[in-house]
Every structure is written in structure tokens, then in C-alpha cells.
């Protein structure tokens, strides 16, 4: 089978090709969004300890000022996205449903979008450590969706040695184009960010992997690399390349991208760093290239607003903490109703989660807000769910080489331990390929999520 996929010229084995649906927003420039009346900054946006607020109710804050801080290495600080008054610190609706501790800031009318905090910094002479500290200060997390703190990802363990930085510009999720636009419009910032990341990790070469449905992005990045090479000093950190990889879902998973670029298979249970590689998202590095020299914190991000229910789809530069309701109003999404829109997805349609309420704010890890119309959902609901007919479509599509058919049957029988021990459930990263292709309409990924959660709880209980 390996030979077959080699002849087909495929990047990695299996995977799926969902309709990309990116045409609506791929050519639209990033637009800035006005401030909403209030922004809501949830304190817990990533793993690690929850940062604790360092402002009090009634305090005036300016855009870019730190408002929450932490001493946990796996957590990052938060910054005020708007200039205004802290109105409330307490529970507000969170994306997953339960309310979460948040800081609510009422924006001053006429507040400027200029960043008022932070000192320009000379990054030319900064060492790796200084860069990591600076990244930590910006509150940067992976903007691709996983929201893993960037400084932790760029920190190389003592015994490991990193030679390659891989920049993930795949954006394999349908509808999303924010990384695409960032690569086209902020290519110079991206190259700057890449240089910082190379210095922090000690990598001597960088490869930007871009799916071949975004050739303009590749050309823009190549041009930016050329400009940086010809500029004063060139790129002393090493070589930087932009490469195309065949379009396929889930290429954006780092294991799949490394397979596509180098043909290496990251051993189960280990990280790319064990093979001397570090993977980062293009949006993250472009933001670093912008923020680090100016000494600012992460206060806004590019969000794709799209989906069949949106009148003015596009890529918007959104202040963090903007409620989705405001974002959708600005993008011209019709009011939710039975026939025009019923599901709001944070992230892409394959892995993103449905928002529990319209008051949920845009956080650091939200790459897209999609409105799925009622008609489309009704068509899906009209489909019957059958028992597994063992058509093997899921086995043919699982990028991790698992057997979702058997796993699904075991999940239905609640044989969770067997799933974990004999059928490698732990390798599943919930890309959704199996549910996507399943002709019987079985919610396989959801069953696996439940099974993994139960296994995790069991493991905790054992300790």
C-alpha cells in the first residue's frame, strides 16, 4: 500500500478530500473589525494553570496592557484587547457550554485600535532565551486551533537537538482561509517570525509546507524570503524554503505534514522534536514577527467568518474577546432560525466545535466562525443511521491507520479498555475522517471522544 500511495503521488496514506469551500473568502483581504461594546476575555484559553487576573473591577485598562498573569510554565498571560474599564470579573458563557471565569471590559467609546502599551525592542541581538521570554510575554499560543503555548513548543528539551523548523501552512480544514490570507498579506512578518523561532530553537533550516491549492501563498512567502535574503544581513539563521504539498485532509496535523514533506513517520508516543524537528503554525509565527519587535501582547487575531449562512464572508482582524454575536452581525449573518442558520462552529467544519451560545467570545485558538444553515443540516438529518455495514471506508480513510469500524463496534458495547489496549485508541487524534466518510452515518469520532474521556478518568482514578 505504501508503494501504491507513492505512485499516486500522495503525501501520506489514506485521508479524505472534502470539498474545500474556500472560494468565498480566499481572495478577500483581511479587514479590521470595530470594537464591540464589551469584550470578554476568558482566563482559561489553553492548557496549564489558569492565569489569575491582575486588574480589579472599575480599573481603567489600555489596549495591550497585561490583565492576567501566571507563573506556570505551561500557561501564558493575557492582555487587554481594548482600552476601557474592567466591568466584571466572574463567570461568563464559555465555548464548551459551562460558564468560565472571564474578565469583562467595557470599551471606551471612540477607543483607538492603536496599541498603547509595550516598548519597541531590539530583536537583532536577542539570544534564544531572550526570545523565548519575549514570546512568553506576548501571551502567544498556537493560533492554528490547538492553542498550545508557543514558548513551550519552541523550547527544546536538553537532550534533544533541533535542526529543522517546519512551518505549517496547510490549512486543510474546509472553509478556513485565515492562514492563507496571512501568508499572502503578512509574508514579511512571517519570515521575521520564522527567524526568531529558528534562533530560539537552534534550527538551521526552515521549510514552510503549503498545500498546493494555495499557490499564491507559496509565491508570496517565496518572495518574502527573497526580500529577506537580499536585505541587510540576509538570513543568518540558516536557509528558509517554501514547499508545496498535495492537498489532502488532515495535512494540517503535524505528523501528516512531516510525512508529506520528509517521508518520516513520527513514532507513536513521541514528538517531532525527537527527530530534531519543531512544527509551528504560520499564523503564530506571523503574529510573532509583528508583536516581538514592537514589544506588544497578543490582542487580536485573524478569523475566517464563512459558511452558507453569511452575507459578507471574509477574513476579519478581530479583537480577542469579541462576542460571536457581534462578529456575526458585522459579517451579515442572518438571525438564527429554522431555515437560515442553526449551528455556529468555532474552527473548521471537520474538527471545530459547535458554540453553545452567541455570547461566547473569540479566543486565541478560534481560527474560524462558520454558520451552517438549517437546510444543509436538515438534509443531513434526513439521512438514516444504519448499523455498520463494514464497508471499510473508515479503515481506508483513517490517516493514523486505525480500524474505526471495529473500534466503533467496541464502543457501542462499552468495551473501552479493549479499545485502548488492543485497537490503539490512544493514537486517534479525532480528525473526523471516519465520521465524514461513514455511509451508515455513525458518529464514530464522538464515540471515540467519549471512550478516550472514560479511559482518562479511569487512569486518574487508578492513581
Amino acid at each position: 500500500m505504501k508503494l501504491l500511495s507513492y505512485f499516486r503521488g500522495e503525501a501520506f496514506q489514506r485521508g479524505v478530500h472534502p470539498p474545500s469551500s474556500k472560494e468565498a473568502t480566499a481572495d478577500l483581504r483581511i479587514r479590521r473589525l470595530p470594537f464591540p461594546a464589551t469584550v470578554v476575555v476568558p482566563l482559561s484559553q489553553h492548557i496549564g494553570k489558569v492565569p489569575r487576573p491582575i486588574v480589579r473591577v472599575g480599573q481603567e485598562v489600555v489596549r495591550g496592557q497585561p490583565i492576567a498573569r501566571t507563573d506556570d510554565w505551561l500557561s501564558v498571560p493575557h492582555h487587554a484587547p481594548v482600552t476601557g474599564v474592567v466591568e466584571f470579573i466572574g463567570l461568563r458563557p464559555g465555548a464548551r457550554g459551562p460558564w468560565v471565569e472571564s474578565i469583562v471590559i467595557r470599551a471606551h467609546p471612540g477607543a483607538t485600535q492603536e496599541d498603547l502599551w509595550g516598548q519597541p525592542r531590539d530583536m537583532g541581538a536577542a539570544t534564544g532565551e531572550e526570545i523565548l521570554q519575549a514570546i512568553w510575554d506576548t501571551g502567544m499560543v498556537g493560533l492554528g486551533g490547538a492553542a498550545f503555548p508557543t514558548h513551550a513548543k519552541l523550547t527544546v528539551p536538553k537532550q534533544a537537538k533541533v535542526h529543522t523548523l517546519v512551518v505549517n501552512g496547510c490549512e486543510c480544514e474546509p472553509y478556513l482561509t485565515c492562514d492563507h490570507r496571512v501568508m499572502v498579506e503578512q509574508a514579511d512578518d512571517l519570515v521575521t517570525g520564522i527567524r526568531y523561532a529558528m534562533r530560539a530553537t537552534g534550527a538551521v533550516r526552515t521549510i514552510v509546507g503549503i498545500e498546493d491549492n494555495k499557490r499564491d501563498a507559496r509565491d508570496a512567502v517565496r518572495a518574502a524570503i527573497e526580500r529577506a535574503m537580499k536585505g541587510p544581513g540576509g538570513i543568518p539563521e540558516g536557509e528558509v524554503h517554501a514547499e508545496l504539498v498535495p492537498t489532502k485532509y488532515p495535512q494540517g496535523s503535524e505528523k501528516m505534514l512531516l510525512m508529506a514533506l520528509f517521508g518520516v513517520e513520527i513514532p507513536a508516543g513521541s514528538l517531532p522534536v525527537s527527530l530534531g524537528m519543531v512544527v509551528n503554525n504560520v499564523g503564530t509565527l506571523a503574529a510573532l514577527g509583528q508583536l516581538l519587535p514592537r514589544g506588544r501582547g497578543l490582542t487580536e487575531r485573524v478569523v475566517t467568518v464563512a459558511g452558507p449562512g453569511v452575507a459578507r464572508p471574509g477574513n476579519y482582524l478581530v479583537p480577542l474577546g469579541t462576542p460571536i454575536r457581534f462578529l456575526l452581525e458585522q459579517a451579515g449573518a442572518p438571525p438564527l432560525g429554522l431555515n437560515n442558520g442553526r449551528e455556529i462552529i468555532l474552527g473548521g467544519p471537520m474538527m471545530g466545535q459547535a458554540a453553545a451560545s452567541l455570547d461566547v467570545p473569540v479566543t486565541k485558538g478560534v481560527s474560524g466562525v462558520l454558520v451552517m444553515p438549517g437546510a444543509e443540516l436538515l438534509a443531513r438529518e434526513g439521512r438514516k443511521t444504519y448499523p455498520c455495514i463494514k464497508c471499510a471506508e473508515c479503515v481506508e480513510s483513517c490517516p493514523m491507520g486505525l480500524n474505526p469500524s471495529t473500534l466503533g463496534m467496541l464502543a457501542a458495547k462499552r468495551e473501552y479498555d479493549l479499545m485502548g489496549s488492543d485497537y490503539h485508541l490512544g493514537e486517534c487524534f479525532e480528525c473526523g475522517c471516519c465520521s465524514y466518510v461513514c455511509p451508515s452515518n455513525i458518529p464514530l469520532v464522538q464515540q471515540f471522544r467519549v471512550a478516550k474521556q472514560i479511559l482518562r478518568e479511569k487512569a486518574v482514578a487508578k492513581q
Partner: protein
Amino acid sequence: MSIEIRSAPHIKAPKSVETIMRHVVWSLMPVCAFFVFQYGLSALASLMVVTVSCLATERLIVRTGTQSGDISDYSAAITGLLLALSLPPGFPLWMGAVAGIVAIALGKALFGGIGFNVFNPALVGRAFVQAAFPQAIATYTPSFLPGRFHEMVPSSMTLPLMQPAAVADWLKAKHLDALAGATPLAKWKFEGILANADELLTSLSGHMAVGPSPALILVCGIYLAARRFMDWRIPAAILGSAGLTAWLLFALNDVRYPNPFFMLFSGGLILGAVYMATDMATSPVTPKGMWVYGALIGLLTVVIRYYSGLPEGVMYAILLGNAATPLIEKITQPTPFGKTAFALLGRQKKGASYSLHPGYISREDAGAVTPRKRFLSNKPKRDERKKPNE
């Protein structure tokens, strides 16, 4: 104003169970049309009666509420058509109806309906009538009889619970040898006469009683495999294994054993390999398992045909393959990404250079900086710290 919460993925590929089954039915249509062209009214009546009996049984059982699926998912239609194609065209209609009822009731509903059946329902039905009516199922009539569109084979219209009239007399009246009704396999087995390639492939000659045309079945199977409504591995494995076994035996003793081409294209091997063995619910889901399953069926077919008292062995070979499927699946689970030999090899060449740019320089050479100490005083210990992962 309502908002709905669903679990990811929020989009869905268009292929559904109905689509798959409908395409299989469509792809069977040319085969059925040619079957009717070959054998005339009897074949048409047989196809219709068996299919209707399957559909009616399915509907009746679904109405009891004990199983999911319905006749609208086309799976019972596939069972009916395949069952009819595997029976002699002059098979008494009432026996055909019995075969259909048994196929759905015992072969499918008893196990819990669509997706749960262990054996191919069509073959369960056929196995039943083979045991119950051995005489009738061995009675074939030659294809392309003159006047086949005006009169039926007399055995077709046998009254229920009656034994069919002997076809030999009817054939004699048509000035045909009674043995013209023997299948190529029976002719070889009992008389040692080998059929020619053109007779087997297209069954256009009219001297023999061959089933549906193997060439046409192969073409329809290629369409299904190309549209990915069927897995190409199973037919490839069956034909490969049967062909190889037959060729080996032929090479050892070409007087006793027929040539491999005859083995592949006589009897129901092609129909079985393309349409029966590929039944999704009863074949393995693992890619490696499909090869094992196919190879087993191919081998068993040749063994049964050569060494048993029966001229035909495809049906039992597939049923045995079905029975072995859970075991085959268990021993052929796919190796997950990151656990293959390839990945284990990669673990050893840590820090090596990879194909894209071979000019790797160590980072000391490049003068890169190593972050030596943590930048926070109250750092957690290395062991306690969670590894970063996506």
C-alpha cells in the same frame, strides 16, 4: 432563535448506504438483462419471483420492529438478484420463492438485519435449496434456445410442493441432446469435456448451459471498483489465488487437471468473486484481511471442485470464507501510523538528514544558540512537566 450543538465533523461525504446498494443494483442490471436475453422468459420470471420474495420477506420482518433497515436500502434487492442469477434459469419458481424467503429470514433477519449477517444471505438461500432440491438445482437448460421468448422451460411452472417435470423430454422434443443442459463444469467433471475460451467468456455459442456472462460481470465489477462501491482487493485475491492453484496443479499434471483459464471462467467463480464474496457485511474490513479472505476462498474453490463429489465449489468456499472472517480480521488488524517498522527505524536514525535537503549542518557548526536555563525561577521539574503536544 435557536442554536444547535452537534459534534464534529459538521460536514458529511455524500455516499450513503443507499447510494452504495443502489449502485450495486444498477451494475447488476446489464448482467440480468443479458441473462434474460440468454434464457428468455424463464429467466425473467425467476429473477422477478426471487427478488419479490426477498423484498416481501424483508418488509415483513422489518415491520416486526426487530431490526433496522428497510427495502428502501436496496440490500434485499441485491440479495434477490444475486440469488436468482446463481440459480438455473429453469428452476421451479416456487422453489425460487422459498430460496428468497430462506435467504432473508435465515440468512439476514435471524442475525439482526443489515450489517449483522455473518453469511452472505443469497448464498444461505442457495445452500438451502441445494440441499432441499438437489435434482432441480442441477438441471440446467442450454442458452439461446429457439423460441425462448415465447415459452417457458416447463420446470419453471411446477406447482408448489410438486417436483418439476423432467426437462430431458422437453429438450428431446426440441431435437436437443439431454446433455446439452449440463454446465461446463459438470461436463468436465463427469465426462471430461473441456469448454473453449469463447464459449466460457461470453456464453454466446449456445451449446452449453452457462450462467450469466463472466465477461459482462467483470466489466460491471470494474465499474463498481472504480467508483469505490466495492473493494477491488477481494476479487483480485480470489481470482489470483484460484488461478495460481489451478495453474500449479495443471503444471504438475495437465491430463488430470484442466487449464487455469477454464477454472477461472467456468461456473460461478466470477459471479462469486465479484458480487458474492465482496458483500461488505460478511467480508473483512482490514485491507490485509481482504487479501487473506480472498486467497482462502480461491484456494477452497479449486479444492472443492477438484476433489469433492460436487462439480461446483464457489458457494461453499465463500460461506467458509464468511465464517472465517472474524478470525481473519482479528489477526490482520492494521498497524497504526507511528508503530510500523518504518517508524521504528526512524527512531534509530535520530537527528539524521532527510530527503528534501541533504545539506544538514549540525547546529553547533551554524553557531546557533541553545536555551540553557529556564527563564522562570519556580520551574517545574522535567519529569513533572507535561510534554507539549498538539
